[in-house]
């Protein structure tokens, strides 16, 4: 398909999709509205990880921590302080980004696997503190029954707020993806040595990518509180981080929108297969094996290649 016609189809498709998503609450039962909300939150999370993994080439294995930090920041501010609610919603993403900066500063000195190992270690440290610090974080119980302002009460209202925030996040992420920084980041992924040779400070750019990605993870964390009205240490457990990583792989980590698809597949699988068997991860395992053999670039990566072979600018 010629590039020009694709450029015209894409906005139309996006508007149609958004239109469809706005009418969903009036036709589907409550449970599905809830599932869609969860998918949206997870999609932001997966997209944020893909900024560093798929586009930055950094193996950020413990991304869930920043999701958790975003969620806990809001939860703690709502339950322990009298600060206005919007302060909490702003603080979540910024605290996550700050944590991303601190952990990133240490990890960025290392390459590939060593980066991943240190990232898991430091992330697990945050998890362990959260898990044991009963007085402050509620320990392994977490914090439940967080009271939210009226505008966010009820799954219908929450749904629309989350949909709007997701739309804004995706637009921002797309702008970053297409910006000079986005291109530089993908160049670093492809060839860090060469990037240094053309005058790019590789580490500084990677760190900036981590800060941006953890900020969006914080946004997802804040929205998690809106959906569930509770937080618990599992948000920061490494198993969740692995799931986010799988979403990126599943959807196609070299594409822009792939992780959204990956998030939708994972959440649906967990919800619907989880009803029949607690061993739903078994299905996931088989799916992953098939994926690695037949669609190594993920579902979206495969589709993009079908649509415009050799011309995709990923």
């Amino acid at each position: 398909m010629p590039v020009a016609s694709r450029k015209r189809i894409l906005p139309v498709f996006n508007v149609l999709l958004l239109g469809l998503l706005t009418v969903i609450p009036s036709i589907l039962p409550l449970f599905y509205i809830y599932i869609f909300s969860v998918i949206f939150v997870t999609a932001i999370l997966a997209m944020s990880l893909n900024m560093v993994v798929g586009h930055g080439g950094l193996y950020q294995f413990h991304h869930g921590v920043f999701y958790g930090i975003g969620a806990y920041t809001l939860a703690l501010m709502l339950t322990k302080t009298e600060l206005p609610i919007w302060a909490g919603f702003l603080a979540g993403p910024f605290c996550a980004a700050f944590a991303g900066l601190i952990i990133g500063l240490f990890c960025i000195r290392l390459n590939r696997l060593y980066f991943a190992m240190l990232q898991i270690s430091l992330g697990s440290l945050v998890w362990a503190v959260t898990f044991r610090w009963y007085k402050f974080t509620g320990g392994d119980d977490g914090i439940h029954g967080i009271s939210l302002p009226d505008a966010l009460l009820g799954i219908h209202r929450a749904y629309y707020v989350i949909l709007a925030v997701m739309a804004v996040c995706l637009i921002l992420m797309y702008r970053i993806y297409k910006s000079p920084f986005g291109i530089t980041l993908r160049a670093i992924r492809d060839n860090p040595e060469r990037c240094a040779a053309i005058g790019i400070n590789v580490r500084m750019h990677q760190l900036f990518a981590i800060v941006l990605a953890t900020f969006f993870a914080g946004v997802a964390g804040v929205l998690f509180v809106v959906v569930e009205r509770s937080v618990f240490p599992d948000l920061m457990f490494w198993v969740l981080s692995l799931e986010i990583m799988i979403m990126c792989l599943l959807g196609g980590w070299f594409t822009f929108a792939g992780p959204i698809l990956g998030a939708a597949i994972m959440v649906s699988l967990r919800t619907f297969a989880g009803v029949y068997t607690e061993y739903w991860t078994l299905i996931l395992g088989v799916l992953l094996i098939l994926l690695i053999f037949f669609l190594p670039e993920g579902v979206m990566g495969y589709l993009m290649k079908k649509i415009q072979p050799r011309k995709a600018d990923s």
Partner: protein
Amino acid sequence: MLVVENIQKHFDGFKAVNGACLSVETGEIVAVIGPNGAGKTTLFNLITGQLKPDGGKITFSDEDITFLPPHRICKKGIARSFQIANIFHRLTVFRNVQVSVLSQKTRNLNVFFPSDRFFVEETRAIMESVGLADKDREIAGALSHGDRRLLEIAVALGNEPRLLILDEPTAGMSPEETATTIQLIKRLADTRGLTILFCEHDMDVVFDVSHRIMVMEQGRTLIQGAPEEIKKNPEVQRAYLGNE
């Protein structure tokens, strides 16, 4: 412009570069020749900062650049191509060159505007000058070997260097491609006023384009001089040219 004094690099006791000296004047085309394993690529890696030397000194435009990291050295005005095509294989040809131009103009951290607004003219001009203008939307990893080598040079040109270092620019090329590349190098030196330092195995190419030649053997500099001088030198004939 560039002065390399008695530079040293050891790998686990093996002296890859052991006291190499080199000087490049503004506007010159200088070739480095020597048998395989003489340390030519290592020397280039030392100049552009990919490797840290164990001794010696490198000055560029009267500035000591010996221990600067690669990206700082690049900003001083030295760009290079690599022996094995070292490009961004998932990006299009256009983006490959654009990243380099963005880096030159320090716009890499801009996250607010679409990159299609940045330096499109400049990028196209560079692709035009190396002859890749019609391939701008191809994915770099899918290019033919010859085209990748050209892209290599195009990416280096994006930095608007004063000194361009080319590591075996014609390696693996067909005779026609080699001829085109040589023409390109000559043209770049003429039209852009580039100073070029390159290494090459093809002696015809070397004597055809270079103003001065530096001969390396086992990590040392044998001699540096004009092509005629090199041809006559008995030591060079014994070490290198003699076996042809």
